[in-house]
């Protein structure tokens, strides 16, 4: 199918937001009836690119050609009229309405209810997507909800169907059904632009893959002829060089994780499977891996949000795995989760209140449960000063801060409490370069003071810079732990893909 005619030609698309270039000169072709993967890490510019194709965002420069005619949709409706449909990662369905009513709501000219129900049945049978138009959406599983969205698109006979990370909410069985449907669609001539960062899926499904990194196209390749390792390398980039570091002497083991297994509290989360590692005083352990492979769960298990058997997590030789967050904090185990608003900080509360959130006991901001507001404000101000948080003052609501500034506050709040063990997920996400450097320096200073630090990050450059040893998470399992010094990009790609993934790659190739 690779030699068929070009459906959508993308040429030099560029889109810049204040402070960040989301897409820079991206060009590639989507052919009629192919499944084309768009591959890249978080923040690589995948979403912005498809939003331009779907008419949600206007490109700054560059052109698109659809079936030989210029294509510049001003809004999604124009895109749909030209035969471009999109299934979003997050569904927009009304729970209280039936499948048919929901589908009718999303159409420009919905047919009569009876005709629509018949059409829905036809399409759902043709493409092997079992779905009863009379059912109420509230009772459907995530996979069935996705089918509603897909059928809504298919009823408009699209020539190009965009799917944004469709498998992130599906069970393995549902993924199989979806893939069958997509293959059938492609065989009938509908092109599919498939966005994902899951390498196996792309190798199993896609005819071509375009890889984005930092807003630029890295390559367009044929996934079935490329190993998962090569794909991962292209996605991650080979552009970093390990920092030269002096031989450091580490102290005793401070954080010990032994056979840690835990079910994710989130239905679509990744459960942790038999993770073991040790972090010594003065050491920074970097944990990489593609997002959604257990990073959030690992942080939760270390912070105490998920409790486990006591001896799965030990601190200075004392088992703490069964303790909730507060006693762990008092002992000196502090953490900063990835999601700033809503998890690390309460959006509508002031910075002072957000300082109390984690620092109440350890910084003595309360006495027998009674809060000391002047002291709390003083501590919040200390964090604001030390980490250069740009805000009118500690009375400002957390949600009023920019992402980067709130990140500085959240990291600063923990660092200023002098942790003995510090676990942080995505420490510099969305932070400008100077602030990122300051945060990394603060992490290194903590280690130099004798703390054990675990840095979880998607940014491999960052991990190479701050970490002494490196490991990767893959589907809730942890790879071998290797010293960062002398680690090659090849090896990192292998660790991130997971060894079992590589086996499959060789068989297929």
């Amino acid at each position, binding site marked *: 199918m690779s030699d068929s005619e070009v459906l959508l030609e993308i040429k030099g698309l560029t889109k810049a937001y204040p402070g960040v270039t989301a897409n820079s000169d991206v060009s590639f072709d989507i052919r009629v009836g192919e499944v084309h993967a768009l591959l890249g890490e978080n923040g690589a510019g995948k979403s912005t690119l498809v939003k331009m194709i779907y008419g949600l965002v206007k490109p700054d420069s560059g052109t698109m050609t659809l079936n030989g005619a210029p294509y510049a949709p001003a809004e999604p409706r124009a895109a749909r009229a030209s035969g471009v449909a999109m299934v979003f990662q997050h569904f927009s369905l009304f729970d209280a309405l039936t499948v048919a009513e929901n589908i009718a709501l999303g159409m420009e000219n919905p047919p009569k209810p009876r005709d629509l129900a018949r059409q829905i049945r036809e399409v759902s049978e043709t493409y092997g997507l079992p779905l009863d138009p009379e059912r109420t959406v509230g009772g459907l599983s995530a996979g069935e909800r996705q089918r509603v969205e897909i059928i809504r698109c298919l009823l408009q006979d699209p020539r190009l169907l965009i799917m944004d990370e469709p498998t992130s909410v599906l069970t393995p069985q549902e993924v199989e059904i979806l893939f069958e449907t997509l293959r059938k669609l492609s065989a009938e001539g509908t092109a599919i632009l498939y966005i994902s960062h899951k390498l196996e899926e792309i190798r199993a499904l896609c005819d071509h893959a375009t890889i984005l990194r930092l807003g630029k196209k890295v390559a367009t390749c044929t996934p079935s002829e490329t190993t998962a390792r090569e794909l991962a390398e292209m996605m991650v980039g080979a552009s970093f060089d390990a920092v030269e570091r002096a031989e450091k002497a580490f102290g005793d083991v401070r954080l010990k994780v032994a056979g840690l297994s835990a079910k994710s509290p989130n239905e679509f989360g990744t459960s942790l499977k038999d993770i073991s590692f040790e972090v010594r005083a003065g050491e920074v352990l970097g944990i990489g891996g593609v997002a959604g492979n257990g990073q959030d769960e690992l942080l939760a298990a270390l912070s105490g949000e998920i409790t486990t058997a006591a001896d799965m997590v030990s601190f200075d030789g004392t088992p703490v795995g069964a303790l909730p967050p507060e006693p762990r904090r008092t002992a000196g185990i502090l953490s900063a989760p990835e999601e700033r608003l809503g998890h690390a900080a*309460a959006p509508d509360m002031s910075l002072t209140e957000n300082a109390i959130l984690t620092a109440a006991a350890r910084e003595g901001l309360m006495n027998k449960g009674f*809060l000391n507001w002047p002291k709390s404000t003083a501590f919040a101000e200390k964090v604001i000063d030390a980490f250069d948080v740009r805000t009118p003052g500690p009375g400002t609501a957390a949600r009023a801060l920019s992402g980067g500034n709130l990140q500085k506050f959240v990291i600063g709040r923990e660092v200023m409490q002098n942790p003995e063990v510090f676990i942080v997920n995505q420490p510099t996400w969305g932070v400008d370069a100077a602030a990122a450097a300051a945060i990394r320096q603060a992490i290194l200073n903590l280690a130099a003071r004798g703390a054990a630090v675990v840095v979880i990050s998607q940014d491999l450059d960052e991990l190479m810079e701050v970490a002494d040893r490196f490991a990767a998470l893959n589907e809730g399992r942890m790879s071998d732990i290797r010293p960062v010094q002398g680690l090659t990009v090849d090896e990192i790609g292998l660790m991130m893909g997971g060894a079992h993934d590589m086996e499959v790659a060789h068989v297929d190739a």
Partner: protein
Amino acid sequence: MIHLVKRPQPSRFWTAVTPILAVLLTMVVGGFMFAALGKPPLEAIRTIFWDPLFHEQFAAYSRPQLLIKAGPLILIAIGLSIGFRAGIWNIGAEGQYIMGAIAGAGVGLAFYPMESFIIFPLMVIAGALGGWAWGMIPAVLKTKFGTNEILVSLMLVYVAESVLASVSSGLLKNPDGMGFPGSRNLQQYDSAANLEIIPNTGMHWGVVAAFVAVIFAYVLLTRHIRGFHIQLAGQAPRAARFAGVRPARIILFCLGLSGALAGMAGLFEVAGPSGQITIDFNSGYGFTAIIVAFLGRLHPVGILLAGLLMALTYIGGELAQLMLGLPGASIQLFQGMLLFFLLATDVFTNYRIRFGQGEAA
């Protein structure tokens, strides 16, 4: 075109002003409603808001009523507001109020005709426990089985009403009552009566308890870590878990507390203004308190003022029925409008209105 633009943080000015704006809007729209009913609107509004306090003839009777009505409303609303802050929606205060009254009155009647200073305090404790126990049913079901506390607490109101009907014509029926349903009148049993502390003010122990509850809630919410955790759990549940708050504890605490306060309110009512357990001694305070809680912005001092205002519309409404022949339902509609306008004007707290063209997408 009118656009709503989200404010970076809630406006303090509008938080304070919206209740006043809501009252004014209610007066205006309510006035139209009264006019449509063929009654003089200005006079109706004056009768509701002004006459209960300052009418030469009626004020002597209705002024004490203000505290009598406001006391239970405030007491219940304080308990509810703490739960609402945590995102726990106890809609069944009416049931907890009834069960508290039954438990407390039951203890008092069990001692009859003994006289002792200890009886009334025991009744208060029993009342609180009765309401607490009724509140713990939705709490335990929610923590153990994840049931919805809104539905469970609401449905338990109807169970409580059936229990009330049963005891007032059975277990607690006055043996000397010539067969009429209803308990002995506690007003006539000195050790159990909740009498006025200062004559002709309406000030009874329930009002004192309401004021204590206001102070307690204020200290809890603004000075104590538990109050902080309650608000955190309501605003950002994930952040609360990260901070180490255990959701089950918050649920048990909030439903237990609001149940206990509602139960106490029921006891003070049945031992005082109402006097006896009858099939319909409860007058919907448990539901009206929900309005009071929101009208007071879930803030203790706000609830104090809102409780007084709501009591005023109750008394004024009765007066308007009496003097102008307004239908009782129109008074309820009037109170409903108050909540409606409050919620509607609430938009200004978090959003600002911008007129004219929105920016081109």
